[in-house]
């Protein structure tokens, strides 16, 4: 059959439309299979997108590291020694680490469920107060809505300045009140507000994040008598370095520096966005896989349905096939005819299912956007490669489904077919 010719397609239409309801029913399975693949893969994409954006647009290649007690004795030190990071460790890391773009030490006042520690006039609030480096803004991006962020001169001069979160502003200031330039007391120490920021995270995370105050690292340590102690380190890993590689290097350097046994599983703990992202991607990759496999099985069942109906049709059309043979149809003509019929039925059904699937996802997406739903499920969609893979799988399955009916049709002997 040459596809650009009209006749084979007219033949095909006649055959498929002879029993439209049955054609519809038998192709339903394949359409449904493809629909399912797109919907489930699209949904898992939506979930992934939602969860990842819930984690904030935090820089993917950031990591956090802090000291804890050791579990192995080493170089004369007993086990159970508490490791405390200090400023020289930071300098040592900056000088020696090859996998990092930046190292930012941080300190914090007031832990989880802290008491009120910040006042402005008569108003008080319980906030997280941090001593930070200017570079920290690159590690955990925030949006400055008023004023500015901490800069190097603040650090050099140990200026008592503070950048406060949106929530802190609400708690300490009246709506119309001038914020920039006004003073707040943090545990009795007076700071001047130089900036207000907004978090890029969403939901509860954002509220917590916006309930913080950033002060210059040097000022913080001086004002709150931290000496050269470092609460924890924020690390910005170089673009092309995998998270675990960088963390491994940092641990190796710090363990040597702080005389911690190289094999000690503790001594330092860390949390890395990169590892988190990698884990998350693995989980959602598996999700997509499972969706694809189950959708694929639905598709397979659908294709079996089409094969079955084709086999039945062959039985019914024994006479027709015999007549065609008697009139000069070659075995190749018959095989091509049956294969094309099966394939067309499969592809047509799959395309319809696929189009409906894409439309359903689009509609859901449009609904979520219009409802301004910023939850954990966001922007469900399928990528082109998923679509192409699904359609290719379907076409290959369809071709396989055609083989058996075609062979069955070939076995029809014209003599038997015409026997009356």
């Amino acid at each position, binding site marked *: 059959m040459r596809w650009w010719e009209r006749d084979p397609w007219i033949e095909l239409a006649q055959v498929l439309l002879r029993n439209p309801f049955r054609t519809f029913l038998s192709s339903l399975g394949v359409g449904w299979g493809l629909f399912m693949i797109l919907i489930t893969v699209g949904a898992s994409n939506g979930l992934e997108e939602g969860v990842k954006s819930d984690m904030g647009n935090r820089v993917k290649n950031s990591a956090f590291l802090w000291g804890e007690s050791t579990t192995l004795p080493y170089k004369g030190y007993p086990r159970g020694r508490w490791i405390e990071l200090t400023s020289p460790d930071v300098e040592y890391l900056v000088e020696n680490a090859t996998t990092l773009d930046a190292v930012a030490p941080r300190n914090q006042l007031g832990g989880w469920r802290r008491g009120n520690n910040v006042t402005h006039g008569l108003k008080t609030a319980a906030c997280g107060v941090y001593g930070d480096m200017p570079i920290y803004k690159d590690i955990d991006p925030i949006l400055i809505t008023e004023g500015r962020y901490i800069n190097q001169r603040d650090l050099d001069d140990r200026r008592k300045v503070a950048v406060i979160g949106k929530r802190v502003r609400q708690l300490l200031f009246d709506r119309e009140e001038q914020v920039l330039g006004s003073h707040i007391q943090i545990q009795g120490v007076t700071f001047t507000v130089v900036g207000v920021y907004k978090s890029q995270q969403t939901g509860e995370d954002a509220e917590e994040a916006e309930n913080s105050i950033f002060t210059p690292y040097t000022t913080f340590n001086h004002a709150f008598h931290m000496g050269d102690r470092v609460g924890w380190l924020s690390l910005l890993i170089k673009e092309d370095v995998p998270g675990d590689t960088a963390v491994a290097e940092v641990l190796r350097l710090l363990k040597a520096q702080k005389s911690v046994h190289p094999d000690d599983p503790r001594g330092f703990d860390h949390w890395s966005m990169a590892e988190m992202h990698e884990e998350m991607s693995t989980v959602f990759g598996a999700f997509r896989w499972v969706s694809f496999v189950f959708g694929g099985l639905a598709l397979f069942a659908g294709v079996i349905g089409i094969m079955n109906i084709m086999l039945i049709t062959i039985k019914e059309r024994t*006479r027709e096939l015999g*007549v065609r043979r008697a009139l000069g149809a070659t075995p190749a003509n018959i095989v091509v005819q049956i294969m094309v019929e099966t394939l067309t039925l499969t592809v047509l059904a799959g395309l319809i299912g696929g189009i409906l699937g894409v439309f359903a996802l689009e509609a859901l997406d449009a609904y979520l956007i219009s409802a301004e739903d910023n939850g954990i499920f966001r922007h469900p969609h399928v990528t082109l490669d998923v679509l192409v893979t699904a359609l290719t799988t379907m076409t290959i399955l369809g071709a396989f489904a055609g083989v058996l009916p075609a062979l069955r049709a070939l076995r029809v*002997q014209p*003599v038997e077919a*015409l026997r009356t």
Partner: protein
Amino acid sequence: MIELQSITKSYTTGSQSLQVLKGVDMQVSAGELVAIMGSSGSGKSTLLNILGLLDAYDGGLYHLDGKDMAGLSERRAAELRREMLGFVFQSFNLIPFKSAAENVALPLYYQKVPRKERARRSHALLERVGLLEWADHLPSQMSGGQKQRVAIARALAASPRVILADEPTGALDSATSEDVMALLKELNGEGMTMVVVTHEAEIAAACGRTIRLRDGLVESQGHV
């Protein structure tokens, strides 16, 4: 046109082998209208299938238009059928979801005749059998006689050398049978070679010559 020499054919069903043709010799010359008669079980249908290249024979010689028909592949047999043979069946065997014109055009489709030419020729043939105004009707909308005339038009479509008819009037009443036989005779009069299998004496009488089969052998061949 057709020449058979000691054609044998046997069917095996399970462990039993049944010798249907036991050495058939016959000739049909170009332009003849020959009836093959015989009681049921005499092998006449098998003989027609062999003549029509729908079935293979076990032994003997078959020359169609001077060519040996031994050991044909399925594909070659199909090609020869569409170039040299036209079939008329007892139960018409029109394709139910195709119009009269499309049924007539089907052999031309397999001959890869262009669409327009097919339409032109199928309409001309329907006119020839007096059914031009029925061209767009489905077989289910036609009477038995009309269906058989469409089938005859279809058999003519590929301009065959021989038309093979298997009980062409078997499913028709006597008046319609006469019409159909008249049409066949008319075509024969125009030079078409025809072989008609029948068990009806009147039909055989209308043919130029009768070959009688009995128990897989030719009993009489008439005057060649």
